[in-house]
């Protein structure tokens, strides 16, 4: 017998009253509640489903077992990226033998009633959960955004479990769902970062990468930066922390909802550890994000948009490429969601980007669909997440730079980076 306390609805799911798919979902949830030591399940109001990612026959089989068993989501559920750009995959090197099962997996999640948003950044266009709202989100970069920036409450849900929560409307009452587990643990004092570097957008992915390696699964509290980050900055920061570490929540004093002051962020406790990065450490962290591709070397692809490119990022990119041309030997691809692409087109940003030679891929990204031709060996990106996963997943060389570095490199046909902000001094 499970040690978790179940109510009548839970027992009905478990008994198969709601069908075989819902029974399977609840049985997995109850086992996991036991693993995490939850005494009970709680109600959730929404979910974001990362299980949509095709990783081979097993993930498809799991999805179809649920869908064919009549499972339907009980709460609004957005879908993360899939294994394929549903309508645009033929423009790239995607094999039919990958695209077909990946599409079937997309259909299985749509059949369960999930919304076909197909983005890792659902908060850019969809309804956002409010402060304190209990949700079940998958996708590491979205989880950290929901917890930290929105103040919603989700545990770090792995693939296969987020959908079980959505189908039952329940989640184990444990981890980041509970107030006591949301207290900051590590103070990251940013007062040594010079103003010039604080004004550089590439600071945020680099800082996130540096912090994630050091805090692993603990909760960092950031304070003291002589600048105020925007939402795209926080998106990049969190995604980087969630890649190099296992961070599901950070606080930023005076900025994020649970951190009006340091005392609130730490829930009255003392930080267990203090970190104080300066420009030298951060420059080293920036260089560490690259792998096998140095400055001035030739380039095949510039890739932007992990997490998915936002409307404001499209605006910034359009401004940088206006009236210019991408080098003939370089492709520029931007990965984004369908909804943001439509907004960017409507706003006129895509004219400048497409005239420059830029291409868009939606629903997915270069890491989740095998889309790159063999001839593309050398990548450059402003995303710490792309940079972190490229060597292992794509077996290709990668350089990391700011958005403006990426554009200049795309024009020059080789890696070029402005060192200005990264050198010591104010």
């Amino acid at each position, binding site marked *: 017998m499970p040690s978790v306390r179940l109510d009548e609805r839970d027992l009905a799911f478990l008994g198969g009253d709601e069908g075989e798919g819902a029974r399977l979902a609840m049985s997995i949830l109850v086992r*996991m509640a036991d693993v995490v030591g939850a005494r009970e399940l709680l109600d959730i109001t929404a979910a974001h489903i990362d299980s949509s990612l095709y*990783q081979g026959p097993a993930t498809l089989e799991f999805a179809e077992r649920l869908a064919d068993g009549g499972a339907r989501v009980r709460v609004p559920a957005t879908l993360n990226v899939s294994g394929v750009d549903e309508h645009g995959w033929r423009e790239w090197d995607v094999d039919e033998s990958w695209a077909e099962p990946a599409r079937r997996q997309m259909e299985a999640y749509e059949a369960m009633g999930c919304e076909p948003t197909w983005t890792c950044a659902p908060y850019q266009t969809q309804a956002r959960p409010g402060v304190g709202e209990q949700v079940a989100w998958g996708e*590491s970069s979205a989880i950290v955004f929901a917890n930290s920036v929105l103040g919603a409450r989700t545990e770090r849900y792995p*693939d296969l479990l987020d959908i079980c929560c959505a189908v039952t409307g329940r989640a184990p009452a444990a981890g980041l769902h509970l107030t006591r587990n949301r207290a900051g643990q590590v103070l990251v004092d940013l007062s040594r970062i010079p103003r010039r570097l604080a004004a550089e957008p590439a600071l945020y992915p680099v800082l996130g990468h540096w912090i994630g390696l050091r805090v692993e699964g603990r909760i960092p509290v950031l304070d003291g930066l002589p600048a105020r980050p925007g939402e795209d900055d926080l998106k990049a920061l969190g995604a980087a922390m969630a890649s*190099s570490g296992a961070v599901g929540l950070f606080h930023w004093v005076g900025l994020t909802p649970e951190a009006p002051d340091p005392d609130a962020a730490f829930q009255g406790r003392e930080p267990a550890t203090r970190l104080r990065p300066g420009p030298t450490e951060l420059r080293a962290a920036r260089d560490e994000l690259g792998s096998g591709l140095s400055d001035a070397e030739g380039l095949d692809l510039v890739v932007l948009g992990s997490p998915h490119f936002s409307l404001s990022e499209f605006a910034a990119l359009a401004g940088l490429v206006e009236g210019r041309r991408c080098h003939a030997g370089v492709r520029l691809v931007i990965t984004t969601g369908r909804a943001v692409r439509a907004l960017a087109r409507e706003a006129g940003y895509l004219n400048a980007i497409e005239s420059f030679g830029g291409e868009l891929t939606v629903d997915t990204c270069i890491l989740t669909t095998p889309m790159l031709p063999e001839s593309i060996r050398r990548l450059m990106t402003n995303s710490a997440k792309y940079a972190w996963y490229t060597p292992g997943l794509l077996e290709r060389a990668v350089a990391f730079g700011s958005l403006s570095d990426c554009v200049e490199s795309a024009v020059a046909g080789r890696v070029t980076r402005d060192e200005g902000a990264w050198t010591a001094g104010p």
Partner: protein
Amino acid sequence: MDRRAVSDRSAASDSGPLIGRALVAGAAEGAVLYSSEPLSFWGGYDAETGEIIDRRHPLAGQVGAGRILAIPATRGSSTTTAVLLEAIRRGTAPAAFLTRGPDTFLALAAIVAAQLYDRAPPVIALSREEFDALRRIRHARVEPGGTVLAR
């Protein structure tokens, strides 16, 4: 005779059996692959070959299939579970997992695999001290109750 194996055996027997908590119970035996560095399976483990492919990880290039994988925890991507489920289906997954404290991602993949494929690698949570003791163990047996014996 391999002298290293002899000395390892004496070092391991000094530590005695390690009493873990079986998040997913099962028996397994094999060579221990140990690292003090967390690992993401997405971008870190090739489900086709069982090779560890995170180029920044100390175990990069090693094959995890059939081994007893001892890592403190998983990190990073939510998709670690999906990659591991696929590896279990293909028979390229480690024979067992030993972690420092409970790792819910590894446990979930094993729990779903038990439902889908009627097989699952045991997932055992150890204390910090017991996990650190694995550093000296080359070959181990995992008992159904969660006890780990050096062999």
